[in-house]
Every structure is written in C-alpha cells, then in structure tokens.
C-alpha cells in the first residue's frame, strides 16, 4: 500500500498552497514554497491504489525517499542513544546536594 493515505497528499498540497503557508514559508526561508510534488504524489498514489501501476508506485516511493533524505542531510551534532537515560524515572531526592 502507499506510504500515506492518498487523501493526505491532497490535503498537504492544499495546505502548501494556502496563503498562510506561503506567508510562513517566506518568513522562514525567504522564498515561495514548492507545492507541485504533493500534487504529483497524489496522482501517483491514486493511480497505484486504483490500478496498481508499477510506475506510479515507484515514482511515489522515490519521491518519499527523497523527502526522508532531505530531513537527514546534515551530520548530527550529537550521538543518538540506543536506550533512554537510565535515570529518567528515578525518584527525586529533595534537598540532595548537587554533584
């Protein structure tokens, strides 16, 4: 099945094109947002769902993988943990002197 519900692509497209979003994009990045890809993804998603077209499926997956790659473009400043901090739930010691 597609990575997202097809309607989600359409609502992201509409949200992207909205005046509100265009304003915020300019305020953040100094440019107009590019919303075309959401519309393309919506078409490919519908095509995949209705007709199980391989090209549509591959195009959509490529587009989403690109989005994921965009989010991971820069090397992180810190090392990620494998487990959460051990003292997260330890009881508080009121009045304990700082280390």
């Amino acid at each position, binding site marked *: *099945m*597609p*990575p*997202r*519900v097809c309607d*989600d692509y359409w*609502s*992201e497209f509409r*949200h992207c094109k909205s005046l*509100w*979003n265009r*304003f*915020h994009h*300019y*305020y*953040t*990045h*100094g440019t107009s947002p590019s919303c075309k890809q959401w519309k393309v993804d919506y078409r490919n998603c519908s095509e995949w769902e209705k007709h199980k077209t391989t090209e549509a499926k591959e195009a959509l*997956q490529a587009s*989403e*993988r690109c989005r*994921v790659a965009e*989010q991971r*473009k*820069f*090397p*992180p*400043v*810190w*090392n*990620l*943990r494998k*487990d*959460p*901090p051990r*003292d*997260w*739930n*330890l009881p*508080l010691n*009121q*009045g304990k*002197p*700082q*280390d």
Partner: protein
Amino acid sequence: MDQTKQEEEYGYDLFPERNSPKYKKGSFAENLFTFNHKCQIMLQVATDTSPYAKLLLSAMKSSGCKIFKDRHFSCEDCDGTVSGGFDAASSQIVLCQNNIHQQSHMTRVVTHELIHAFDHCRAHVDWFNNYRHLACSEIRAANLSGDCSFSNEVARLNFGLKEHHQECVRGRALRSILAVRKISRVEAEKIVDEVFDTCFNDHAPFGRIPHSNKDAKFANREYESRDRYYANL
C-alpha cells in the same frame, strides 16, 4: 562555596527553588502565596489540548521516556524573566509560575522545554560541558516551539519579514546560552554559527517546522502513521 560557583556556572541560580523550595510542596502556604495552582492548571490545559505538546509527549513515550506530570514537571518561582528550564540532572522540566501568566505562553514554554527533554531522551546530549550540544538544542527549541512565530516577534516589537524566523532563532538561542553559561557573546555566536545549519534543519519529531496548530496537527498525523510510512517506502 563550590556549590554556589557551580550553580552560577550552569544557570541554576536562575532557579533558586531547585535545591531549597520556599514552601512545602502541596502546602496551604504554597497555594496562597504562589501561582502554583494556576501553573498546574495551565500545564494540564497545554498537555491536553496543544498538538505541539501532544506530539512531543507521544514521541517521548515511544523513545522510552514516558512523561509523568508529577515527576517530570515542576512549577516553581524563578529568578528574573526566565520562563522555564530543563534540568537534566533530575530529568525535570521547570515551569516558572511567577513569570507565566497566559495560557499561550505556558503552551509555548511547555513545548520548548519538551523539545529539550526529547533531545535528552534520544541523544547523548552533554548539557553541562558541550556548548555545541546546548546550542543545538536551543536552536531546535526556538525553531520548533513557536517561539519565533511572526506574531510573537511582532509582540516583542521585532519587525522583520524575509527569513526573519532564522534571525529570531539565532538570537533566542544565543540569549538562552548566555543566560545559563558564563561565556562571551562572541564565543557563543561562533558556536551557534557552527551548528546552525544542522540543528535548524533537524525537525524531529515534527518532520517540519510547525508554524501553527494546523501544521502541528499535520505533523501529528504523519507521526501517528509513521509505521505504515516507513514500511512502504
């Protein structure tokens, strides 16, 4: 003497109630003489209704750091104009009950501090010794919490439009670092510059910069369907 010096070095002097609360917790005096009760109510409203807070709470739970209000939040009187803080030593978010008087402010502070808590939970953040780590988390918190929204900036009389959000994030991250660490402005600016690109573009767990509750709701929707998403890439 050593403890005082350390308190100042790490910004604990802004939070005098961390080590010695003025009134006993839950006491009548606490309720009468402080804004503790109001703070607790506003905190509840923020965690129940804000899509920003709800997403962060979900993400933290999935990362193994479930938040328990009584354990991980503390409403206290603080110094000066600081609104809140994250105390990594006790894994607590401090909310400055004497400085937060509006719900929208509370929601923003809760979101900001939850971002720090989320970073603490998912990464080895060396809060006390690594200024790059501190700067990174401050950049992320200013970027993603709504601190730098157009309306908040206008309310501070900072009028700017094109890419002003980035300017605001830089400025607020710088201020936050200078408030809690004894380093020079020039040094702090250098550190913020070094990590800015990486940290400004790290939008976890939102996946985008949420500029409004609608953005945050979209981000929530994405987060809740992440299993399906990654399984079908």
